[in-house]
Every structure is written in structure tokens, then in C-alpha cells.
């Protein structure tokens, strides 16, 4: 009797301690979630804080008198004349109207530096495409110089250093007041390729490059991955050899991605003589990298199809092939798709293997096909982050935001597909 009461005593006494232990354990879990969410929040806040100004461009809108005498040009279609013409003069003349007292050579040069480096070629291209505009006055929106842009956007941000002379700052202030210099949505970012001038740099080249690369990856890894998974799961005999293959596929999933780059360099470029820096080769390398992920997730999806379905199909006389094609694959498809999309999202963020096959490169022209030189989104972010001009800091963060948007939409698609197509048994 006394023994029993002492047992109850022990339990009662320890109860409090056990509850405390559980509460502590829960607290650890909550803390872990907060830590993860907190660092994610800090990361996003930092990127958005740095990157939002990347979506804003600074333009200088000037009335340009396209005077043929001033430019030494009377036929904008004549190549020889164009190469000798002075397209800077009308820009300087237009700016001088705002500041008539600027006369010295050095000051004029400084005044011209308010515009980006390609103002002259913009006029040239305009005249080449529309020769009739010669000797008319046109309002043209030029991109401001990187330093002007930094001054206008970040004058009171201590982490940017202003590299305009005091005179130039006065001019810019004046032009901003008169509405000549203004800021607007940065459409350049989404309509051009890379540039060494932050104002002219766009991410379209990288987006197209990623798109072509991912297309090649998908077209190769999805059918091959599913074929491999179906064979291994449904048809392959269980023996030492298939075990060996299975172990190796699992190992392959854990191989560092740079190894696939080395393989791509050795096999596709050096052995097959394929060109460097093209989405075709990049996509093939990333396809090799994604294959194990797709095979593993597809096998899991096939395994989760209940045996009763197979047995029922076989029971009504379906052949093995018919069972697989009519029942197993359609039912496993949501799982296979989810695995593939997640594998693709992973491949989208990959840079290391692309380094070796030459896709980490300065490429200005927007790629138009699978064998045009191209780079991809994460590489573009890396290139901008390591450039010396200040304007690239915000562009790099803006690039990250674009990349994250793609990743999140791909993952959202995977979740949506799973929710929509999933069958429960």
C-alpha cells in the first residue's frame, strides 16, 4: 500500500518536471522557426532595400536641334560621313542653353559628362533609322550618367559616395528643379542585355539565356529521368546490378555541381567540339545535374501508386506495358512533375557548373537561340555584384529580386500542380 502511494508520489513529483521539459522543447522549436524566418526577413529586407532603386532610372530629357552643320552631316545614311560626324555637339549645345555662362573647354566637358556615354550613339541611331529628322528639333530622353543617377537617387544615403564635382551638383540640382532630369520606371532593365554602364545594363539577356538553358534541361532531363524511373521501378529485375545502379543514382544526387561542369567541359566541348558559352551545352550540363533528382522523386511517386491499382488492371487483362502507361504513369504524374519542377528551380540558381563551360561571361547581345552566347540570371547577379561602378550595387539586388520571383513562381507552380492533380487513396 505504502509502496503504491510512493509510486504515485514519484509520478506526481516528476509530472511537473516532465511538463516543463515539454514546454521547453516546444519553445526551442518556436525559436528555431523564428530564427529561420528572422534571417529570411533580414535577407529580403536588405535585398529589397538595396534593390528597389534599381527599378528606377534617371533620364535627362533635352530638346535637341539636329542641325546638320553642327554635326558635319548631311546624309545620315552615308557610313563614311557618319563615322566622321560629331553627334556630341548638339547635346552640348542643348545643355548650354540652360547654362549660358559655361564656356571653358573643361567645364563643357564636365557638362557633357552629365549624360551617359552612349548619348551620341543614340542620336546616331535615331538619325540612321529616320534620316528625315535631320535639321529638325526633337525632344530626346537620354539616360543620365551613372554618377548623376547615384546623386539624384542617393544624395542623402551615406553608403554611396557622390562623385560629381560641386559645379556638376549645382547643375544637376538646377536641372532637376526645371524637370529636365527626372526619374521613372527602369524599362531598360527589362529590355536590354548587359552593359558596362549601369544605366544601360539590362537583365533581358540573362532572362532569355536562363529560359533557353532551362528549356534544354527540361527537354532532356524530364523524359530521360521518367524513363529511367519507370524502368527501374516497374521492369528492372531485382539483382546486384540494379542495386548498384540505384546506389549510384543516389550518390550522383549528392555530387557537387562543379563536377558536372568539368564533365561538360571535357565531354561536350573538348570531345564533341560544341561551342562554349551556349545555352545548349549549359542546358545539357544542368540536365545531368537534375537527372538524379528527377529519377529519385519519380521513383517515389511511382512507388506511392497503390498495388491494388496494378492488380486490378492486370486482373482485367491489361499487359504490363498497358498497366504502366494507362494507370501507373498518369497516377504518378503529379509527383513526377513536382520533383521535376523543384529540380529545375535548383538548376535555375546554379552558377558553378556554368563557369567551366564559359557561361560566366560579359555578353551584351540578347541571345536569340540555343547556340547564341548567353549567360544566366545568377551569373548576371554575380557579375554585377563584382563590378566596380556604384550603380551596379542596386542592379545586383534588383537582379536577385527578379531571380527570386522566378524561383518562387516555379515553386508555387509545383505546389499548385500537386494540390490540383493529387489523388488520395
Amino acid at each position: 500500500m505504502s509502496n503504491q502511494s510512493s509510486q504515485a508520489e514519484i509520478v506526481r513529483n516528476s509530472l511537473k518536471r516532465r511538463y516543463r521539459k515539454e514546454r521547453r522543447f516546444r519553445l526551442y522549436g518556436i525559436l528555431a522557426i523564428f530564427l529561420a524566418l528572422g534571417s529570411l526577413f533580414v535577407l529580403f529586407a536588405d535585398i529589397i532595400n538595396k534593390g528597389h532603386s534599381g527599378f528606377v532610372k534617371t533620364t535627362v530629357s533635352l530638346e535637341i536641334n539636329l542641325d546638320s552643320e553642327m554635326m558635319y552631316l548631311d546624309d545620315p545614311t552615308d557610313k563614311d560621313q557618319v563615322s566622321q560626324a560629331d553627334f556630341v555637339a548638339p547635346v552640348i549645345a542643348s545643355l548650354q542653353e540652360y547654362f549660358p555662362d559655361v564656356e571653358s573647354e573643361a567645364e563643357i566637358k564636365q557638362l557633357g559628362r552629365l549624360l551617359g556615354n552612349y548619348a551620341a550613339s543614340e542620336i546616331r541611331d535615331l538619325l540612321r533609322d529616320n534620316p528625315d529628322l535631320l535639321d529638325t528639333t526633337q525632344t530626346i530622353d537620354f539616360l543620365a550618367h551613372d554618377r548623376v543617377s547615384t546623386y539624384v537617387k542617393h544624395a542623402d544615403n551615406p553608403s554611396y559616395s557622390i562623385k560629381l564635382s560641386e559645379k556638376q551638383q549645382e547643375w544637376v540640382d538646377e536641372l532637376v528643379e526645371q524637370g529636365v532630369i527626372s526619374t521613372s520606371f527602369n524599362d531598360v532593365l527589362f529590355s536590354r542585355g548587359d552593359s558596362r554602364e549601369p544605366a544601360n545594363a539590362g537583365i533581358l539577356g540573362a532572362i532569355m539565356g536562363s529560359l533557353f538553358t532551362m528549356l534544354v534541361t527540361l527537354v532532356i532531363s524530364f523524359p530521360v529521368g521518367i524513363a529511367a524511373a519507370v524502368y527501374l521501378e516497374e521492369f528492372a529485375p531485382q539483382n546486384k546490378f540494379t542495386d548498384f545502379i540505384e546506389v549510384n543514382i543516389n550518390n550522383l544526387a549528392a555530387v557537387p555541381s562543379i563536377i558536372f561542369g568539368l564533365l561538360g567541359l571535357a565531354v561536350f566541348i573538348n570531345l564533341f567540339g560544341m561551342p562554349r558559352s551556349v545555352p545548349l551545352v549549359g542546358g545539357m550540363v544542368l540536365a545531368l545535374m537534375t537527372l538524379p533528382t528527377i529519377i529519385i522523386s519519380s521513383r517515389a511517386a511511382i512507388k506511392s501508386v497503390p498495388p491494388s491499382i496494378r492488380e486490378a488492371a492486370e486482373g482485367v487483362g491489361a499487359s504490363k506495358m498497358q498497366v504502366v502507361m494507362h494507370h501507373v504513369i498518369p497516377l504518378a504524374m503529379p509527383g513526377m512533375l513536382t520533383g521535376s519542377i523543384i529540380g529545375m528551380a535548383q538548376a535555375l540558381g546554379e552558377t558553378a557548373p556554368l563557369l567551366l563551360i564559359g557561361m560566366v561571361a560579359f555578353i551584351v547581345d540578347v541571345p536569340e537561340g540555343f547556340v547564341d552566347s548567353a549567360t544566366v540570371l545568377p551569373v548576371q547577379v554575380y557579375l554585377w555584384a563584382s563590378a566596380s561602378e556604384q550603380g551596379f550595387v542596386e542592379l545586383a539586388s534588383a537582379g536577385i529580386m527578379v531571380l527570386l520571383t522566378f524561383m518562387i513562381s516555379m515553386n508555387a507552380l509545383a505546389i499548385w500542380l500537386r494540390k490540383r492533380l493529387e489523388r488520395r487513396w
Partner: protein
Amino acid sequence: MIKLKTALTTVALAGSIAAVSSPAMARDTISIVGSSTVYPFATVVAERFGRDTDFPTPKLESTGSGGGLKLFCEGVGTQHPDITNASRRMKKSEFDNCQANGVKDITEVRIGADGIVMANSKEAPKMDLSLEQIFLALAKEVPDPDGGDKLVANPYENWNEIDSSLPDMEISVMGPPPTSGTRDAFVELAMEGGCKEFEMIADMDGDQFETVCHSMREDGPFIEAGENDNLIVQRLTRDEETVGIFGYSFLMENSGQIQAATINGVEPTPENISSDKYPVARSLWFYIKHDHVGVVPGIQEYVAEFTSEGTWGDNGYLGDVGLIPLPREERMEIAKRAKDLEPMTGNEL
């Protein structure tokens, strides 16, 4: 069944894409590889070239000088690059490798100079260093300060321990990592230059000499920063005791906040760097593969753009990004040789 068909079509599609890219495929974009030091200059030229001509914009990869020369010398054919940039001259061994792989005719173009500066914040005292002092401050092993002819682990913690004329400041130097060409050049020009001043080291045999002269200390005073020179500059403005090592163009961009140390009494000015008076200066180069001229369109035009006065001249746009022009006469001669595609003989190396 429909799904099987789509799968089959996709496989067929993949096959046809692969078939399009036969090895013999022509390339119409110039492919340039090489030094990360030349990269910022070459990209500016490439972009201008793409805008101002009808040729596509050349593609540039930053692979480092050694990596670039390796790719360049791998062979002839459009899967290999047409031009490689280098922040040092091609080595004899690299030239021989080129020859062995069938890359026979190569034209060398020297494009300008670049100085490596040691700079600190304008708030701190200006330094006047000799190569010898740089070696003593940054080497892993130095001659025993108490005399004798043995090497000891670097004992110096403060600049004025090395020489009483130097400021009373803790040694703290940020420099580029070993993967960087700037680091190679710094080690070769500054460290080795200072190291040779000590008789006992100069007498050592080749391998040992190199180990002693090329080893940077790892006990704290020398800090390896990333490839990002911007970070070093930012750090200098915040921390007055730190000295940074980087290319001249970053000094130029930030001359408001930082000042360069004189080395052996010479200021790193464009004149001193291009005339080789400044001891830690190097030349920048690129190399053209003749067999690709005429195969890949635009190579000669690109070279012409690079070697025009408006590009690499005294007022050229490369000056704005920090390239130090060569003297005009030399430029003219190099430009002419580049235009004629004068091949290297191998003896000049």
C-alpha cells in the same frame, strides 16, 4: 497515350537541337578570354565596338591570365577563343604550348600599363615605403632582426619597428587573394623586389629563393580580402590604420578619400607608371590568333578599335576607366604592328 507521344516528341526535339550544333559550326561572335585585370577595359571596348559597328558584340570571359592563355593555346577552330587578354607577358612555355597545338601565328599587342598601389585613408599619415620595408612587413619569414644569417618568423607588429621613419601604426594590410593577377604581380614585383635586397636571400638557390620571397605572412597583419577591391576601399575609409593593396584605377576612382604611399620615393602617377619609374607597375597585353582572322568576322576591326587614339590614347575613353596609356610613339608603333598582324617569333619572350 497522349503523354507518351509528347514525351517522344520532346526526345526527338532534343535530338534535333543537338544535331544543329555540329562541331564545324561557324561562329560570328568574337570570343575573348583572359585576365580579370584587363576585363574592365576590354569589356568597355567590346561594348563600344558592338554599338558602333555592324558586328555583334564580342563575348568576354574573365578566366585569369594563365587560364586564358591555356584556353587560347588549346587549338585552332571556332570552339577555341580568338583573343586572350593577359596582365603579364606570355611565357615561353605557353608560346611553345601554342605552337605544339597548331596555334602558329600570334600577334602580341601591349595595350597600356597598370600600377599596383598601397594606399590608406587620407586621415592617416602618408607613408613612404621602400620595397625592402614592404617585404619586411608582409613576408612570412624575414632575416633575423638581431643579426645572424637565419630566417625567423616575421616578428614585426608595428610599422615603426621596421624603420623608425615609418609611422607608429600597427601593421594591417588588406590585399587580394592568391587567385588574383594583382596578387601575382604584387608578389613578383614588390615582394621579390624587396627580398632581393637581402644578400643572404639573394644567394639562395631558385626554389628556396622563391619560397621565401613569395610567401605572404599568415599570422594576421596581412588580410586577404576578396576579389572585390571596392570592399578594400570602403574598409580603408573606415579604418585609418589599414593599408590596402589594389589597382591604380581604384585609387583614381576614390582619390577623395584615400592616398597612395610612395614606393622607393616614387608617387604612383600615370607618368611614373607608364615610364616604369614606379616599381610596382606592369603592362597589360592581348594576343590575337591569326588562323581565326577572316574566319570569325570583325577581329581586325575590333583590334583597330582597341588601338585607336580615341580608345587607348591620352584622352581616350579607356583612360576614364583607369588604363594608363603608353607613350604616344610606342602606341603608334604597336598599333601599326597590330594592324599588319605581325606574328611573334618566340624569341622576344
